[in-house]
């Protein structure tokens, strides 16, 4: 019995080494595949974050277009029937609004004067098309542009004026708090010189003379990962010349 026990103990020693070596080899294989899976997970995560941010930026541009036209999310119901409103914007208390005719520009100018880069509540009236440069949309300048909430905000968030529901949009990046997605609309007056007829050289719609404005919408979305950022820019002509509005 004593010898048998000694024999067993010796065998256990060899088994231990063999099992440990096999475990080690197995662990190497498992670790290798885990690392591969983790890498794949990371890549897919970045890709989906980018696509989510891009979709949010597109949704913001559509929201800004509705804001400019004064329509709710169904694209037909006016934002407000209240006479104190111009489109989706409350005209009172010195707030900015989207100009309806030439004379509105001076009033708008005074109402956005206090804001960063002549922007307030997502409406900007810059001196020229080059006033807001790429530096405006990066670093600390961007932090200033996205600062403030409610009436004190420089930018506008999804549904803030059109009433569109960020929750119904199904994209977590569009949520109002904490805000991760903003848009700004620069208002420009289109020149009269090119006025009457749409030149053949440009395939672009020219604004109607009664509403001679073009709007440059910039949307910016910060994804869930710190490195995911999307800027989208679109030029919007709400009332093109050939549509007799």
């Amino acid at each position, binding site marked *: 019995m004593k*010898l*048998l026990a000694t*024999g067993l103990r010796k065998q256990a020693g060899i088994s231990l080494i063999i099992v440990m070596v096999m475990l080690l080899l197995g662990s190497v294989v498992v670790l290798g595949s885990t690392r591969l899976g983790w890498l794949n997970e990371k890549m897919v995560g970045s*890709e989906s974050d980018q696509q989510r941010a891009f979709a949010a930026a597109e949704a913001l541009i559509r929201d800004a277009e509705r804001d400019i036209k004064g329509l709710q999310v169904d694209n037909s119901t006016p934002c407000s029937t209240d006479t104190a409103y111009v489109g989706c914007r409350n005209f009172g208390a010195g707030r900015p609004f989207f100009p309806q005719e030439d004379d509105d520009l001076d009033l708008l100018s005074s109402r956005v004067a206090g804001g960063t880069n002549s922007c307030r509540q997502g409406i900007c009236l810059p001196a*020229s*098309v*080059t006033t807001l*440069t*790429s530096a405006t949309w990066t670093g600390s300048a961007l932090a200033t542009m996205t600062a403030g909430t409610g009436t004190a905000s420089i930018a506008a968030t999804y549904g803030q004026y059109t009433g569109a529901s960020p929750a119904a949009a199904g994209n977590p990046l569009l949520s109002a708090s904490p805000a991760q997605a903003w848009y700004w609309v620069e208002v*420009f*007056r*289109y*020149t*009269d*010189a*090119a006025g009457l007829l749409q*030149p*053949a*050289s*440009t*395939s*672009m*719609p*020219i604004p109607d003379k009664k509403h001679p404005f*073009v709007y*440059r919408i910039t949307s910016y979305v910060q994804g869930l990962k710190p490195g995911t950022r999307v*800027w989208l*820019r679109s*030029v919007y002509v709400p009332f*093109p010349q050939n549509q007799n509005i």
Partner: protein
Amino acid sequence: MNANHMQGMSNSGIGHRQHGLSMLELLIGITIGLMVSVAAVGSLVYSRVSATTVGDSSRLYQDAAVAFRAIGYQIRQGGARRLVSTGGNVEFNPSYVGFGSGSSTVVVTGVNGTSTITETLRISFDTTPGFVVTDCLGQTSTLANNVSSTFSVSAGALTCGGSGSTTGQWQLIQGVEDFQVWYGRRDPANDSFRYFTADAVPLWEEVESVMVCLRLAGELSNYPTAASTGCSGEAVPGDGRIRRVFRRVFNIRNLGI
């Protein structure tokens, strides 16, 4: 004595029996071990092969996603025209004509591939200088009023060339067997919409959408694959490689029509 005798007996008896038992144990152990090893190696080989197949196949999907993302990024912006200042107001930049000249603006253009010429797709848009809007190589344009990208195929790889300081065609993805582009145009006469190959497009100014087809093949050639259908409906004989045909339509958004 008795104890000694017993010890001697048991010593030799156990020694012999142990030897026999060890032999039997060894044989059983080796047999079981071999069976387990065969099963383990078999399943390992099987999982390796299936992992390689899945990897090869998913690589095709990822490659196609990369290619369409690069092409789509350019086509979606195709024909964009920036605002420029004029007399205190603004206008759409009248200097941008894309690949056209004079009074005609051409946003996309291409060359139809033949046995000697490779299929080529070119896309252009206008951007505000200094803004981070780039060609397919990620560089800002050195040309005034125009960012352009050229997609083509060279030695089985989809290549792209930009309009920045780096010239030449650079590889995007490999394993491209076929790259075909069709251009969608609406006939002003009867509003019918049709796709044309590059050599048959009646008027490049009227192209509204671009359909891109890529046929990609895997790297490994040990799969029993059947014949497949290519981009233009042609039959592609199977040669043991995994093949996928990807097709996508991109709309040119900035036409204002």
